[in-house]
């Protein structure tokens, strides 16, 4: 079981990098959708 910690660190790093990236993209999509909905509402008035 030598280097198990290093292997786990690498595995967790992969998941962490993609979790953070996926989160930032999802947040940008949500923010833009909110802004678009607000502008559409504004244009309806």
């Amino acid at each position: 079981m030598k280097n198990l910690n290093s292997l786990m660190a690498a595995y967790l790093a992969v998941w962490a990098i993609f979790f953070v990236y996926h989160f930032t993209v999802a947040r940008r999509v949500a923010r833009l959708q909110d802004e678009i909905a607000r502008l559409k509402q504004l244009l309806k008035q």
Partner: protein
Amino acid sequence: MATAANPTLPPKTGAQAAATIAVGLLLAVAGYAALFVAPTEATMGLIQRIFYFHVPFGWSAFVSFAISFVSSIAYLRTRAPKWDWLAVSSAEVGVPFVTVMLVTGPIWAHPVWGIWWTWDARLTSTFVLWVLYVCYLLLRTLIEEPERRAVVSAVFNIFAGFDIPLVYFSIWFFRTQHPQPVIGAGGSLDPRMLDVLLLCWGATLALLALLLRQRYRVEALRWEFERLRLESENRAAPPQTLAAVGPKGRSA
């Protein structure tokens, strides 16, 4: 890939959630195979299993940057915004893939080489690749005007793309500490290891496709937002400007 309201906006459906779950499951299966199914390498032991993340993420990063490179050429030829969106989306998605390569490589190297990092040709050219694409993304934030931003960044992207073959072929062109290829000509990879490696590459390509689609959606939404913002600004124009123009375009 289009909606009735906006022909460039990918539809938001349950298929997106299903694809996310499917890719998550595929990554979990690939991770399990890398950790428990692939045979343990004789000399390096457990730490060699990093190979199953490091190599597929690297290959997928090359695919992502190659898409970006081709998209930038297509943009300069056609000036169609969709190519610029695809170029920036694939460049940005490629960055975390290279980051995985740059993080997992030193974690493997420390117990095997006794050092975290060395400035040899493969490692240096990979680091330069990462820096180039981060600069590409930063460059885009510095130019306001969309068309100028697309042209300047496309030219920079084509320049950055020439580092991709340099990274890939650096182990043939230069004497490096990086391991030589284990598949293809001269490779000696155990067939069970090769199966797991290909499974992991398939999983990373699926992840790449999923993220690319989501990131492309950001660009399409940004375009829609800009269109609506301009429309709202035009409507909010001062009334005298509208009244000043008569039915035949003359001053009232």
